């Protein structure tokens, strides 16, 4: 199906809006383990990747982190740099994995979560000049598996609904 530039731009803007909203409301969701979040905003990044390609995913994710921290008032604080490095590393790894591996969207979500954690830990280690912060990593990675799978499933559910409305080629496999 033909997609002109305006349509792409509007789609991307809508996705960005949804991503910012999810990023903002996510810390308010109560979960069993304190400090763990599902990474709901990443669903939107995935949808951007599958709808409009790698550039779109990078733009949506980067702008989401920038604008959400601007809205929260934590721009250029420690949390912002952690978020930024996590999201950059995970986006780049997901784009690479989509190109060179046969992972489904569930695998990509888990991968994204894993590298988001790694990026955050690397950034916090550099900021505090402390290598022992890596001791947070095993627990984060183990929790990445269920949260990544869940966001992967949610991405499929959202995608199926967009698909029903029409506008996507039939051969897209998630």
């Amino acid at each position, binding site marked *: 199906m033909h997609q002109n530039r305006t349509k792409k731009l509007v789609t991307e803007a809508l996705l960005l809006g949804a991503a910012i909203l999810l990023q903002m409301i996510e*810390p308010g969701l109560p979960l069993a383990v304190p*400090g763990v979040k599902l990474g709901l905003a990443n669903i939107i990044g995935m949808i951007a990747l599958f709808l409009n390609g790698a550039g779109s995913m990078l733009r949506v994710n980067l702008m989401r982190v920038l604008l959400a921290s601007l809205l929260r008032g934590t721009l250029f604080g420690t949390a912002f740099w952690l978020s930024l490095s996590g999201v950059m590393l995970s986006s780049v790894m997901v784009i690479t994995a989509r190109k060179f591996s046969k*992972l489904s969207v569930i*695998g990509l979500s888990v991968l994204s979560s894993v590298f988001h954690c790694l990026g955050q830990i690397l950034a916090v280690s550099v*900021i*505090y000049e402390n290598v*022992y912060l890596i001791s947070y990593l095993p*627990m984060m*990675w183990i929790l990445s*598996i269920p949260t990544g799978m869940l966001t992967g499933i949610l991405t499929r559910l959202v995608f199926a609904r967009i698909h029903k409305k029409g506008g996507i080629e039939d051969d897209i496999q998630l």
Partner: protein
Amino acid sequence: MKTLWKYAKMNRHDVILLGIVALCAALIYAGLFIFRAQNSPREKVAVVRYQNREVMRIDLSKDGVYTTEATLGTVTIEVKDGAVRVEKETSPYHYCSLRGWVKQTADPIVCLPNELVITIEGADDGNDINLRCTRTVRKNW
């Protein structure tokens, strides 16, 4: 419910990835476990750093309650039975006080909103062979 399972299908590559992730997590955990077993100093101190500079060095052999000023307000640190915890702090989700008691090296407490990190180190790190070696190596760079 059956239709929902349809969306949870994974291929072989996904399963392999999950295995690798779990294995890496286990390896890092094991590595840290061995590191702690080999580097457990007899006299431990809790080093409190705020925004990258050391503000306090607390002897873990004496119980006590200490306070320090951080980004969002006063942080209360409690030492008891050779372990340290953040007792009270001002932050949105209180992750660092939920972390609870910590008594081992390589197991830091991080309070991100307060820009505060507490690590446990050996009190005699000046005489520590490992540390002295790294320092000499650094000087030679």
